């Protein structure tokens, strides 16, 4: 039986910029930052209160994982905001929204009371979008 998810990938346009976004803006912690040779880096971060879920910030670059055309297509799709990678949770959505906005995070949907919960949507620095919800009280 599967018990846990411990790694998930988010494809990013630039790992340095993604590091700044996820660590300095979202407040995530760096778990692993290892050089894998020239121009290659294994970079994972974890949400502050979920140290066992590593989010791998995967560079979309021509190389072993992507062929040239696939990398270009993938970069284009990410930049266009095609992919939504998950749902984050916070204690207080209005406070978190105001804080992230103050730090320059772009929201595509302000906090809204929906029938399924209280939700906002934001984009990372590459264009990937995430839902941000408030923990049920």
């Amino acid at each position, binding site marked *: 039986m599967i018990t846990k998810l411990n790694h998930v990938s988010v494809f990013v346009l630039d790992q340095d910029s993604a590091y700044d976004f996820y660590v300095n803006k979202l407040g995530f912690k760096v778990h692993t*930052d290892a050089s894998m040779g020239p121009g290659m880096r294994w970079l994972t971060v974890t949400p502050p209160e979920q140290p066992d879920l590593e989010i791998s910030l995967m560079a979309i670059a021509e190389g*072993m994982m992507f062929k040239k055309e696939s990398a270009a297509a993938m970069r284009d799709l990410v930049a266009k905001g095609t992919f939504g990678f998950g749902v984050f949770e916070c*204690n*207080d959505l*209005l406070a978190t929204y*105001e804080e992230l906005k*103050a730090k320059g995070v772009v929201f595509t949907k302000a906090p809204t009371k929906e029938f399924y919960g209280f939700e906002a949507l934001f984009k990372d620095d590459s264009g990937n979008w995430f839902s941000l919800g408030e923990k049920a009280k």
Partner: protein
Amino acid sequence: MEINEQFPKIYLYRRIVQAKLFIDDHHPENIDLNNISGEAYFSKFHFIRLFKQAYGKTPHQYLMQVRIEHARLLLNQGMPVNKACYAVGFDSIHSFSSLFKRLVGCPPSVYQQNELKRQAEMKRVPLKFVPNCFAENNGWNKEPQFSITEV
């Protein structure tokens, strides 16, 4: 509808967020939390209640957590424990060490030892830190420089 219209008390959140960001930016300094509540135009009691509602911790608990997190980063960079203690705003090694142990689970010196060892290993054998499916997909497991040779 604008967020100000939808949530008329949003200005309260903005003040709380400003207080939180003030703690983030000034945590090594001698912060008087009474002043923060004053700057946020709240009574101390009201301020603490709203802060805890937003962040799950009192301002004091949050300040201590930020200091310990900053200390971890400094220890990761190899800063001696006593220097890290003062650099993040503690004025007693004893109170720093006991709080560090309570929040992190081990004394700062042990934490630093383990972390520096982990970093050295990450440089020496990076493949140990990458799930094999990702390593294979990127061809990293075929790179001779990453072959695992225990010393």
